[in-house]
């Protein structure tokens, strides 16, 4: 990896480079992204199977209740561990070092290793599906997951363990990169908000994922070594698992959402041509969410926890609405009075706000203990977390895709297809998941293949729109493939953005920058003459997608 100044560095990496071991954070980012999207398709196909089975109130598509159980277990596991978390590692990997003006991540080798743990882990988990599959849900509560499950559960735990290790490695890398590798001009208060979000996320991941590792270790010992950590008849405790597991998995929700919030701050500001409203509060609220997120885990156990312990967790859970609200209002302040360009990226960002607010409201409702008791473990909860993880994370992932695709590939995506994709995704999503609130309140528990026939109409409505939502994925897949080959050439800075990843060619050269770039004093300082001059300089430096002969960016 010698330093290269020549124009040849602008060429796109050959597709075969993405299939090989590489320590280049940009290659690894794409590897993460493509792998995660493939898993998204796999998990989505499983979701379609789930909705097909739920078309009728009886068991007909699946051979048994267990088959259905293993299907949604896999759906949850694949979507969480193999799609959303790696997908944020994808964008984090590609964008964060560029935004920091760094040549690579702090530990390039570790970065590659963390990625290459994912394929074997995925194979182990998916292999489990073909032996005696895990059927205890992605939460794997013992004793169902210990005394009453087959070998697939062991493989599930092993695979999840590997993914946890990968996540810890990746996060250590992010923290060190963000804290140590900023250019001297960039203090922590002028850091792009995506970096803030990734930093907060990585801190959570480093502190929380070991809990998953510990819990899985004990689960594996119970399964294979005959210990009884979670078995009451051997002196164990079934709630021990729930406590440790949720101590990881609740913060994990923020691992899945916080980077999306960072993306949103970027996309809204850039595509509305306005500074992020209340930058400090947006950055600090990420940290606030990260820390309060560690104190709320037991609200997942409201129906099993000792009654007197439930109230404190209700209070902490409600408190977390405050930093989330700060973010939501700050984004509204960002777009208010802006010059909105209706790019696909902005559409998905607005879609995020529109849908995530519903997830936030139902989150507060679920925190209200007496109401939660009624809807705990029902479709209301299913709906809530899909509003957070699909309406939130996936919409943000799409926004990030449309936003950074030009930087990754050097080509623009097709905006018309992007809009069609948005319409299908938005309405498909809304009509799939909003009615689930109602079936949940009416009395339909989650994780059932056989349900009260009174809910058939609701479920058919939901399934229909779920298929629409499923279809929408193919539009974006077509768009990505088509645009990769046929899309118009993007140029260095198609969105006229101020953050550093746009101050280099698209795609960036192997060393990212031919020189040490100087960030603009304010990452979101749109609307000033200085920022316009900076952007013009960047445009001039990279006109035609090539660096100027002397390698400097502008003058």
């Amino acid at each position, binding site marked *: 990896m010698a330093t290269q100044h020549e124009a040849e560095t602008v060429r796109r990496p050959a597709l075969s480079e993405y299939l090989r071991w590489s320590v280049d954070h940009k290659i690894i980012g794409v590897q993460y992204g493509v792998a995660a999207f493939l898993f998204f398709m796999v998990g989505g196909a499983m979701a379609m199977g789930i909705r097909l089975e739920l078309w009728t109130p009886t068991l007909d598509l699946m051979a048994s209740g267990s088959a259905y159980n293993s299907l949604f277990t896999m759906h949850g596991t694949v979507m969480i561990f193999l799609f959303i978390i790696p997908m944020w590692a994808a964008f984090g990997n590609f964008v964060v070092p560029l935004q920091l003006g760094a040549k690579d991540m702090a530990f390039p080798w570790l970065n590659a290793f963390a990625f290459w743990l994912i394929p074997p882990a995925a194979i182990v988990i998916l292999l489990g599906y073909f032996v005696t599959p895990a059927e205890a849900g992605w939460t794997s509560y013992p004793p*169902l997951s210990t005394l009453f499950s087959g070998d697939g559960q062991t493989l599930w735990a092993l695979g999840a363990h590997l993914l946890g290790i990968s996540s810890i490695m990746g996060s250590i890398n992010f923290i060190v990169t963000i804290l140590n590798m900023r250019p001297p001009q960039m203090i922590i208060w002028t850091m792009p908000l995506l970096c803030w979000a990734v930093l907060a996320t990585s801190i959570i991941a480093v502190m929380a994922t070991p809990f998953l590792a510990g819990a899985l270790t004990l689960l594996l010992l119970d399964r294979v070594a005959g210990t009884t950590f979670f078995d009451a008849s051997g002196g164990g405790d*079934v709630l021990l698992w729930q406590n440790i597991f949720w101590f990881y998995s609740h913060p994990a929700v923020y691992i899945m959402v916080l980077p999306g919030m960072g993306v949103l701050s970027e996309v809204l500001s850039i595509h509305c*041509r306005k500074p992020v409203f209340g930058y400090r509060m947006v950055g600090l609220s990420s940290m606030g969410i990260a820390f309060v997120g560690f104190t709320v885990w037991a609200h997942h156990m409201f*129906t099993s926890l000792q009654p007197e312990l439930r109230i404190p967790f209700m209070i902490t859970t409600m408190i977390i609405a405050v930093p989330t609200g700060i973010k939501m209002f700050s984004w509204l*302040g960002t*777009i208010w009075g802006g010059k909105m360009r209706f790019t696909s990226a902005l559409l998905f960002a607005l879609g995020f706000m529109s849908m995530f607010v519903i997830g936030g409201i139902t989150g507060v*409702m679920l925190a209200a203990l*007496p109401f939660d008791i009624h809807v705990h473990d029902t479709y209301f909860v299913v709906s809530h977390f899909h509003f957070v993880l699909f309406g939130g994370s996936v919409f943000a992932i799409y926004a990030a895709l449309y936003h950074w695709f030009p930087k990754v590939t050097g080509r623009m995506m097709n905006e018309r297809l992007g809009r069609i994709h948005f319409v299908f995704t938005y309405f498909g999503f809304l009509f799939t998941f909003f009615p689930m609130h109602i079936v949940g309140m009416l009395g339909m528990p989650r994780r059932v293949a056989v349900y009260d026939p009174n809910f058939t109409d609701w479920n058919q409505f939901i399934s229909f729109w779920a298929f629409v939502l499923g279809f929408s994925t193919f539009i974006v897949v077509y768009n990505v493939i088509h645009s990769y080959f046929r899309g118009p050439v993007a140029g260095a800075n198609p969105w006229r953005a101020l953050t550093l990843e746009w101050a280099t060619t698209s795609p960036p050269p192997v060393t990212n920058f031919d020189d040490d770039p100087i960030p603009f004093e304010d990452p979101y300082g749109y609307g000033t003459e200085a920022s316009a001059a900076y952007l013009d300089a960047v445009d001039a430096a990279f006109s035609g997608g090539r660096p100027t002969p002397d390698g400097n960016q502008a003058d």
Partner: protein
Amino acid sequence: MENNRSNIPSISPAAVVVAAVFLLVSVIGINWFTTFVPEVLPAQASAESKSVDELFYILVIIGGLVFFLIQGMLLISVIFFRVRDDDRSDGPTYHGNPLLEVVWTIIPALVVVYLAVISFNVWNQNSEPKAAVNMINGEETVIRVTGARYAWTHNYETSRLNPEGEPIVINSGDKLHTYIGQNVDLELRAQDVIHSYWVPAMRVKQDLLPGNPDTGGRPTEIRFTPARVEGVEYPAEYPIVCAELCGDGHGRMRGTVIVYEDEAQFLEQFYEPAIHAILNPPADPVLRGEIVIQEYICNSCHTLDSLGWSSRTGPSMNGIADRAGERVAGQSAEEYIATSVWNAQAFVVPGYTEQMAVFGPDQSDANKMSAEQLYAIVAYLCTQGEQSDCDNENSTVAIPEAIKTAFGLDVDITFGQGDSEAESAASETSEEAGESE
């Protein structure tokens, strides 16, 4: 970030109009949705459900305001702040407004404090232990609920005594019988995995946790007081649902709460007939078996058309008597059935997994089975088939020693020796209870 107050974006009059329209829409919308609330919640069949629904009502109003506020502002932005794609100009450089930021931190904080307080009050009010629970005939009764894969079992430990002076236990299977105004307080125990006892109409839910059976398990408690629902004919029925994933038959794990109008109706239609049936079991072991088998959770996994069971986790019991004699070499049909009930792992029908529990006198809760009950179940299952392999008439069946040991039998089961002698063998020990036939 420094503030650049000179650049505050001006809001056009049209935006004010739209804002007003949205305020109107949100008021109408919330109002409409709150009238819709009763439609999206089950009947309010308990005292608790009223306060929970009131809380929900408040949550919907506040949530609705937030919802319409944010969607409204989004819509206004989309309409008024949109520019053409070729407009290269930037928006105002406006970095924030500390006052506004403080306001939108403080107001949500106050709102959640308010919500926490009212939730706490509702919770306190609903979870307060009540005096005089499970009153039947003026006496408190223990009602134990067992969750086992995949059925509920309700046991009423009554104050009535049987002729031996032991309290009578009514096993009402997957049905909970109660009446309006009774302070129900159930003792929940899980037999195998975690289950969750949910009565949507009562707005209550509690997990059942497996504990150490040697120390009495790990009981949890659920409390509610059925209330009158207008326009409902009593006795009214409400579903009980298992809300915690428990395996193959989780979706089928359901039960029924039967609410009687008052204690008199409860006593007349449920309690007294149940006591009577226990004190006067049918002499015919087949008829008795038909009752006994329904007290166990066989229906959660097996199909049996005669009783309307249709679960497919375990092998079908339709026509079991026709096959029972050929399953295991050297076992007669009766021996096979008895062995399969007691210890199903002894022979697992090909194509099925080892899921069924062991039943016997020394098992706990839902799996407790006396010799008489086993005897009755075998007698009943022997009638399930066209040409039964069982020799129901005047035959004594050699019971394997293992079963005898497990059930404390000292003689073999004898079938069909007429009503009066039916209790001669297996039922010897305590069959005096049935002397009145």
